[in-house]
Every structure is written in C-alpha cells, then in structure tokens.
C-alpha cells in the first residue's frame, strides 16, 4: 500500500539505468502504477487508430481526384519512405458527382424506407410478444422463447431458396406433402420481399429486449389503467410501452441499424440492383464497384455518404446500443 523507502533503493547505485528502472517497477508501487497508466494510454491510442484509420482512408481516397496516379508514400526523416496515404488534392466535387453518376440518393432513400418500415413492424410485433413473455404465465412459455431464439441464429442462406421461389410468385407447397397452398404475389423487386425476411430475422432481439423492460413495469400501474376502463391491449400501448420508452428506443435503434446494414437479402431480392426495384444502399455501392470500376474516389465518396447516418446514430444513441447489445445477448 504505502510507498515507504525501499531497502533495495540503496543498492540501486551499482545498477545500469534499465536494470534500475525494471527494479523500480517491480518494487515501487508508484512507478508500477505509472507503467500501467502508460500501457493503458498506448492500448487506448492503438485501438483508436485501428478502428478509425479505415475512415480516414475513405476520406483520403474521396478527396484524391486521380487515385491511379496517387503516391501513397510519405517520407519521414530517418525512416525514409513510409506507406501512409495522404490526400493528393482536394476534390470535394466527388461528393456531388456521387449523386450524378448513379441516383445514389434513391438507394439511400430506399434504405431509409425499408429500415423505418421494418422497425415499425418489429416494434409492434415485439411489443405484443414482449408483453406476453414478460407479464403473462402460460404453458409453453420457455419453449416458445427458445424457438424464437433459435430462429434468429440460422443462416439466411438456409431460408433463401424457398423464400426466393415464393417471392417470384411460384406456388407455396406444403413440405413433404406436395399440396399446393396458394400462389403468392410476385414480391421480388418490391419492399415486401425484403421487409418480411428482415422483420423475421431481427424480431427476436427486440422481443428479448422488450420482454426484460415490460417485465419490470409494476403490476399496479397496469391494474390502475385497467380499472380506468382500458382494455389489456390499451394498457400495453398506452401505459406499459410509454413507461418502457428507453427499451423501445433501444430496440428501435438496433433494428434500424441492422436493416440499414443488412447485405444478404438486400443484394438478392432486388434482382438487378436498380433503385426502381427498391434496391437499398447495397445496390448503390455495388453499382459503383461493377459499373464505374476505376472511379475509386467516387466509391469512397459514396461509402462516406452511406456511412454518415450510422455515425450520427452511434454518437447520439451510444448508450442504447451498448445496453441493447449486452442485454440482448447476456440476459436473454
């Protein structure tokens, strides 16, 4: 605990500087704490640089008008040429051109529509389920929660083939019985072909978050509302849901991010990645990769535009993301 003078200190005079330093670190609490502090700052700086550097790289590329001729080396005294990208020009026009070459705003708009619609559907369905799991006792409760949990972890690829068939408008057949149920409408290239899988895949996380929150509302509050003459559903949407606003916001933020970031169904269900086919952000970015194969600055500028909404959400809703992710995973 204390830092009383060490008896070993007196023998220090005969040691070299490095030896003395290590000796001090081993024996002196004060020096040891300073070492830990230094290690901590080095680690924190390292993590900051590694996570943020790729965004810097995007910015460098977007501002550099002719990427092919760019020289990504910086000469540093003593070390010589070191590979480190710096902007070779200041071409802000790239951020305008992004919207001219490809209707990028339409892709982003589609992403927002899909993410918002899915979030609303998920919140509605997850509220019902969260109310049931959090506040009601009934046979099969644990089993049903496990089934819902299991669904969300299966790979989208395991659902793709029959879903794609059904969304093309082919008849839905009862597995193993061969009975044709009905012919669904042709949903590919419409929001429905994406919103339905998104809702199913991202529903479980919201159910688990809302179950925890809804379970914490005291029974008395619900009963009071019921005495006032509200129906059970009315109590859910007028009392329990508003009282659980932080939980609802958490579920909403996580669902929105998940849909905005989704790749699998987003890239497959809009057949030609056209904005008129409700292709979201994925289609916009990929069309730069496949059609404008040498416009690297535009690819980078498009990526920056696409990433901005998420940057804002993370900065604003950080607490919600952290609590939602950890609760969703650890307290399910």
């Amino acid at each position: 605990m204390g830092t009383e003078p060490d008896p070993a200190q007196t023998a220090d005079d005969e040691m070299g500087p490095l030896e003395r330093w290590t000796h001090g670190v081993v024996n002196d609490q004060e020096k040891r704490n300073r070492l830990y502090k230094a290690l901590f700052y080095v680690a924190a700086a390292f993590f900051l640089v590694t996570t943020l550097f790729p965004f810097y790289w995007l910015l460098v590329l977007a501002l550099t008008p002719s990427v092919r001729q760019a020289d990504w080396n910086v000469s540093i005294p003593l070390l010589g040429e070191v590979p480190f990208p710096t902007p070779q020009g200041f071409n802000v026009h790239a951020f305008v051109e992004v919207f001219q070459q490809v209707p990028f705003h339409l892709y982003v708009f589609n992403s927002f529509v899909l993410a918002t619609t899915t979030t609303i559907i998920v919140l509605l369905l997850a509220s019902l389920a969260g109310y049931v799991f959090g506040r009601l006792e009934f046979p099969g409760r644990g089993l049903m929660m496990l089934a819902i949990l299991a669904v969300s972890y299966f790979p989208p690829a395991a659902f793709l083939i029959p879903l794609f068939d059904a969304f093309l408008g082919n008849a839905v057949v009862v597995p193993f019985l061969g009975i044709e149920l009905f012919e669904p409408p042709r949903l590919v290239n419409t929001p429905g072909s994406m919103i339905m899988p998104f809702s199913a895949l991202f529903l479980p996380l919201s159910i688990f978050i809302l179950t925890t929150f809804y379970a914490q509302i005291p029974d008395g509050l619900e009963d009071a509302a019921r005495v006032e003459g509200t129906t059970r559903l009315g109590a859910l949407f007028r009392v329990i849901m508003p009282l659980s606003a932080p939980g609802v916001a958490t579920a909403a933020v996580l669902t929105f991010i998940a849909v905005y970031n989704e790749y699998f169904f987003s890239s497959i269900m809009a057949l030609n990645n056209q904005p008129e086919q409700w292709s979201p952000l994925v289609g916009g970015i990929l069309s730069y990769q496949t059609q404008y194969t040498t416009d690297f600055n535009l690819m980078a500028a498009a990526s920056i535009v696409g990433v901005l909404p998420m940057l804002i959400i993370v900065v604003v809703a950080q607490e919600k993301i952290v609590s939602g992710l950890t609760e969703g995973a650890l307290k399910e």
Partner: protein
Amino acid sequence: MSTEDRTTGPTRQSNRSGPVVAITRWMENLGETGFAYLLLTPVMLLLSAIALYPLLRTFELSLYQNVLSDPEFVGLENYVQLFTGGASARLPGSTTFLPGVSTSGSFPFVHVEGLLRSALAVTLIFTVVSVFFETIIGFGQALVLDQDFRGRRWVRAAIIIPWAIPIVIQGMIFYLMFHPSAGFLTGPLSNLGIIASTNTLNDPFSSLLIITVADIWKTTAFMALLILAGLQSIDRSLYDVAKVAGATKWQQFKLITFPLVLPALGIAVLFRTIDAMRIYGLIDSVSGCTTVPSLSCMVVETFNTNRGLAAAVAFVTAGLIAIAVMGVIYQQYKEGF
C-alpha cells in the same frame, strides 16, 4: 385458468355494438393463456412463413435432383455428392464442399490450394481465425473501456463505430485498401510476401486474409461490449480485498477478473461463431464468391442452377450452426432460464 376477475371488472358492457366492440369484448374475455397465444399469433405466423417453412422446404428440396426442370427424388444422394466430391458437386471456379476431394483428385487431404477451394474448409478456417483474434482484441478493448478516464465516452463510440457500418461499406473499404491499382497496402504487403502482388483480390489466400482482417476490424466491438458487460458485473470489493492481501495486478486479473468474466466470454464467443459461419456479404463485396467460397456463398452461387445441391449445402450450414445454437441454449439453461 380460464376467466378470472379480470373479465368482470374493467370490461364495461358497452351499449355500442359493431365488429370492433365485439372483437374487443371477445379478447377481454379470453383467459390468460388464450390471450397469450392470441398475441403471439402474428409473431409465430411470420416466423413460420419466413423461417420454419423455408427450413423444412429446403430439406425437402435437398432430397431431389433437377428440381428446376424435372424433379427426381434421390434421397440423400446430394449429401453423398457433397461429401465425396461427385461431379455435380462443383461450383464456378472449381469449388467443392469438402477439402481433399478437389477437382483433379491429386490433392493430398491438406493442400492449401485444395483447402481454399472448399466451402466447408474456408468457412471453418475463417470462423476459427476471426473469432480467435476478435476474442483477444475484444478483451483488450474491454479492459481499456473498463477504466475510468476522461473522454471514455468518445473512445467507446470510436470502438463501436465499425460494428455499426453497413457490410457493403466495410467490404468497399477493404476492397479499396487492397485493390492493386488503388490500395496503398498491396505494394508494401506483397513486398513482404504476405499477399499476392497482382490480382490480389482474385487470389484465394490473400483474399481470405483480407476478409478475415476486415471482419476482425468490424466485429471485435461486439465482443468487447459483451466482455465489458461481464467485467462491469464483477463485484469491485473483490479487488479491494485482493489489494489488501497484496495481490499484484496480474494476480488480480488471473484470479478474479478472468474466471468471473469467463461466462460472458463464452456467450460472446458462441454468438460470434454463429455469426461468422454465416459469412457472405463481406466476401461478395471484397473479392467475390468464386475466390473465397464460404458455405453461404456456395448456396447463393448454385441455387439458380443446381437447386437440390444448393439446398443440401444450405441445410448442412443450418445444421452446423444449430450445434453452436445448442451451445447457447445450454448456457442459458445452466444459468436458470
């Protein structure tokens, strides 16, 4: 368990009539169990339509050949083809499902080139390597975030940001970083002999390496957050006791932090494993499915040509993931679900 006092009190016998009122009254008169099942109906319908039906139908399709033209029931033949590398189990770019059963048949069981042409091996290698590094780096990030320091909020935001960016943009960033004529890393790294100097993004080994790094960059944050939650649930007074007893920081870590954070760590590893085994989007946007064939890639690439086989791959993928899901469920069960 049917009607309780709930049905009598709050439900006013309204004079109004009409379908809405009738339905409301009917719902109010349902018992708790009936009401629970009623509210779960929409969720269950959606999950049955989007998950359960496709899963069963996928299994059914995997028992057929020539599904698109002239369906023929072949039993487990597609699975046999997968595991023996039969002629029909080929993909664009001579990709197979298992290693060692590669195209020419001359590959020994573990030949790097053969290994990286097989969907199962690529998926497993990617999963093990990326989850391993994500765990270690995530632990480091969690330890940093667990400290009290000024600007902690901003460091945490910075660490979370990669997790929140779209997969397609994550792919684009690394595509641009390693593109032979745009990227700044291709030159130096190929000089060191780590990645191929030309056609970097068409080289199986280089691409798998790049994709693994990209995945570690993006998803380590998830690991860090779960481990951080575990760290913060540790009773701080344990450390005070340890300090009084004269334990060094390393001893505190070894004897208190690590054992107590282990359950959270286990869950985090399982979640990441499940997620990593589904990899598709990152591969598709960095180097394409024929260069780095993962299981999901194999499904997407073949389902329009060889539907039965694609269904078999999809079902095997689901089975592999089901094993990890069982692990999660077992963990939850142990902790008293």
